């Protein structure tokens, strides 16, 4: 199985002695000034996991408040702050940074490069993102609400105008929200540029575009998409700030501005954003599923084509978030069609994953468990997405708990599950230690149960007419029991995530030694020691196929003979 000395050209035979700094300040300084893509990747991931715990706690506060009707756990103001911060944090401080963190760590290793194309830009991007997060959370003390108390943003993560106007959102909470997103947006743009430059110009010899691992392909596509989508968001935030401080009237409806224009700006960012978050995890699944099925990915060219197709189609579907704002019937029909079209390349991906499993020898290690659950959940999320794309049905389901259930199926059922898979899969590479499989299985099953108790049930309260963003509800609407069940599920997920956090910490000190290649995998990162040394490869590796390590392990039956 684990081959300690894979003789791939360029991999280091021996892990160099790690320089261990004597003093804490020296160690800290090393992390702050680092431009090493691996360290920055780790910083991104640690930062995101910290905010995952914070935003998770916010979600639990929301669920405690909604466990029964007319609960007084949170005041209405605080409840609105909680769901705004939960959404904003999960998207901007957890989802994007953790995925870009994976990209930072893995892309150079996977394409046989020694670092990202622009290491200093890389460090700058991370610190901008981190600063954005701090700015957002500083609003809790600096937001200065109406009564001189601190106040976090409370306008929803979509922040529809004109609720964000000075007249309706006095104080500075909304300003912190806008500024935080502008700042972290710059960080994201920097990383996107970096990933594009790296994948286009830093690949090792033999690594043609169509030999790149699918994770790298998807990060390339996502980075391109990021450049297109973050821009309108930043523009909209600047316009909002101009409205609030310089007397602009872009979104100021009292002065003839347009509330609908904000929605267009927001969703032309916001919908592709969903794909910015979900496509990297397609990449993760496309790395993990083959390794644990012991088969090459089925239909690699189709997977690449489908990814590019999804990126393009995703730019033309934004107004399906706006079926209820009163577009023309032709406009509605257009966005129905464009949205349904996303189902085709997405379907191809699901079929290809199933075909990859088909005929394999599946090993149920923790990363694979999370990926398999992802497949089922993503299937369901896709189908509820089709339901929501049906505009007339959307008039009923929009802004109901059905929508909450649907997008959490994507964001948790697909994205978070795959993020966990990725951490179980690559943690050994990053730290040199395996995560505990026992704790991993507990984490998986508890999280799976909690997830389904929570989000399956939410679909039904949505059918029963419960709208989102409400801090409490009438006791006679028939929503009481289901809400209680949803809250229980939330608690179970919370426990599972704590187990995971504990696993991360204790395995770092007491985990089994991993070796170079604990999963018997096929991509270049597994040819380096764990953790990889500075600059990854002593000499540039040379590859001949999509699975260079397969070729090495099976010289009698190498991949390059079969790859088109």
């Amino acid at each position, binding site marked *: 199985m684990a081959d300690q000395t894979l003789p791939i050209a360029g991999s280091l035979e021996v892990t160099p002695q790690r320089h261990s700094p004597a003093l804490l300040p020296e160690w800290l300084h090393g992390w702050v000034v680092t431009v090493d893509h691996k360290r920055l990747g780790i910083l991104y991931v640690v930062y995101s996991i910290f905010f995952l715990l914070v935003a998770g706690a916010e979600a639990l506060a929301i669920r405690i408040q909604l466990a029964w009707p007319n609960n007084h756990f949170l005041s209405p103001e605080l409840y609105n702050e909680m769901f705004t911060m939960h959404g904003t944090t999960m998207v901007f401080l957890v989802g994007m940074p953790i995925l870009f963190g994976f990209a930072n760590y893995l892309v150079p290793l996977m394409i046989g490069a020694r670092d990202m194309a622009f290491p200093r830009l890389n460090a700058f991007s991370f610190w901008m993102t981190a600063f954005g997060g701090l700015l957002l959370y500083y609003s809790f003390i600096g937001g200065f609400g109406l009564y001189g108390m601190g106040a976090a943003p409370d306008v929803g993560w979509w922040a529809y105008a004109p*609720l964000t106007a000075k007249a309706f959102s006095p104080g500075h909470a909304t300003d912190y929200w806008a500024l935080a997103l502008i700042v972290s947006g710059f960080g994201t743009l920097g990383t996107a540029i970096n990933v594009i430059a790296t994948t286009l110009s830093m690949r090792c010899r033999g690594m043609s575009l169509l030999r790149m691992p699918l994770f790298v392909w998807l990060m390339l596509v996502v980075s391109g998409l990021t450049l297109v989508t973050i821009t309108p968001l930043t523009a909209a935030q600047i316009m909002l700030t101009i409205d609030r401080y310089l007397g602009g009237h872009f979104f100021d409806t009292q002065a003839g501005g347009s509330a609908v224009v904000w929605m267009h700006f927001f969703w032309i960012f916001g919908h592709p954003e969903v794909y910015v978050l979900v496509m990297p995890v397609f990449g993760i699944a496309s790395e993990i599923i083959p390794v644990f099925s012991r088969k090459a990915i089925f239909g690699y060219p189709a997977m690449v084509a489908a990814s590019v197709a999804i990126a393009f189609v995703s730019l033309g579907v934004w107004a399906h978030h706006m079926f209820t704002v009163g577009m023309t019937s032709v406009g509605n029909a257009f966005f129905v069609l464009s949205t349904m079209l996303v189902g085709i390349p997405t379907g191809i991906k699901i079929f290809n994953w199933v075909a990859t499993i088909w005929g*394999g020898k599946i090993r149920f290690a923790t990363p694979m468990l999370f990926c398999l659950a992802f497949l089922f959940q993503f299937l369901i999320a896709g189908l509820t997405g089709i339901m929501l794309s049906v505009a007339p049905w959307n008039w009923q389901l929009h802004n109901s708990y059905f929508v909450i259930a649907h997008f959490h199926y994507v964001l948790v059922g697909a994205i978070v599950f795959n993020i966990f898979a990725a951490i179980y899969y690559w943690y050994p590479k990053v730290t040199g230690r395996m995560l505990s499989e026992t704790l991993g299985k507990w984490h998986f099953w508890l999280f799976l149960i909690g997830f389904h108790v929570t989000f399956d049930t939410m679909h039904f309260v949505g059918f029963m007419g419960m709208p989102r963003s409400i801090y409490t509800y009438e006791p006679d609407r028939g929503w009481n029991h289901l809400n209680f069940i949803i809250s229980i599920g939330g608690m179970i997920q919370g426990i599972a995530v704590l187990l995971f956090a504990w696993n991360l910490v204790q395995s770092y000190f007491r985990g089994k030694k991993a070796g170079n290649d604990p999963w018997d995998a096929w991509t270049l990162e597994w040819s380096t020691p764990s953790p990889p040394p500075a600059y990854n490869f002593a000499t540039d590796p040379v590859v001949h196929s999509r699975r260079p390590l397969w070729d090495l392990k099976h010289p009698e039956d190498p991949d390059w003979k079969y790859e088109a």
Partner: protein
Amino acid sequence: MAGVSRPSSFTPRVSDLSRKSITRNLARKQMQSRMREYGERAIRLISVPFLCFVATCAAPIAWADGPQSSPSIFAPASTPASSIQDLSWFVLAITGGIFVTVGGLLAWAIVRYRARKTDDDSEPAQIYGSTQVELAWTVIPILIVVVLFLTTARIIFAIQDAPKPQVALDVTVVGHQFWWEFRYPKLGIVTANELHVPVSSALEPRPTFLHLLSADVDHSFWVPQLAGKTDLIPNHPNDMWIDPRHTGLYVGQCAQFCGVEHAKMLLRVYVDTPEEFDAWVKQQRQRGTQDSSVAAGRHIFETQACTNCHTIAGTAAMGTFGPDLTHLESRATIASGAAPNTPGNLHAWIQDPDHFKPGALMPAMQLSDEQISELVAYLTTLH
């Protein structure tokens, strides 16, 4: 998916049949049967709460006609809601079919192709793709999309572009933080939070067309049993229609986050028989009652800031920021459905609106208890 290691069935070879192994075999069999018993008991234990759960989940799918306390989208009582429901069954059938097919294949593949203890170390056959198969699973989804799209488009046009008949009732709905204003332009009626419309039937269609406006931020009008929701957006008037088939009270609420009390911006739609509706119209068109026995309360109302925001026809009060109170007593609730309209609740509401709706825009007027009692005495005469 429990099978990393499949329990191998116990098949001892003949030479192993020593006394010891037979006893072990027996013990094992006993254990197996006991396990089965436990399993059955566990299933029985789990099945009760599971069935309860299924029953609760199935609750929204109620076939009873007419209004329900749980405003399910699967209990439509008006044409837009009904055609949406029909469409949704169609879409559910297709997506359900896809789920069973793809999910089934996936589940089968996971079970069938799991690694087994008996496997050797060899890798399975490597298959890189298949053009025919991939073409097939591209074309089939395209066909499904075509069918779904055409069906959807038909319903979009049918609901959204439905012509307005002559007999239609016009109502202008104005969304406010955090209440609803209803204006009947042709009838000269202004009321709040409780919409009255006549029942409609196939023989005597009497649809109501709602013109949706907003005075401040975005809101959304959603009464699930009557129609899908449509947003109320400042500077962006919208329209929607309903034609309720059954009389009674339909509940809903604002479905677009509009600020601190979004949760308590509740909606009540009363569908009246034609006679009830005419009577209601007649009563609403009268001016405010002038009862001299409550002159003290009326004086307080007219001399305090109440008049800045509220209107009572026939008095000096002509404010428009808050609900029209001319016929306050004809409404069952106050504060946009946050509390029943009783003298006690009115008293508490005037004294401290935050008690019912923390963050409501009505200020506490700092009146004495006695003043509030007089005020409430006056308000309760406004039938």
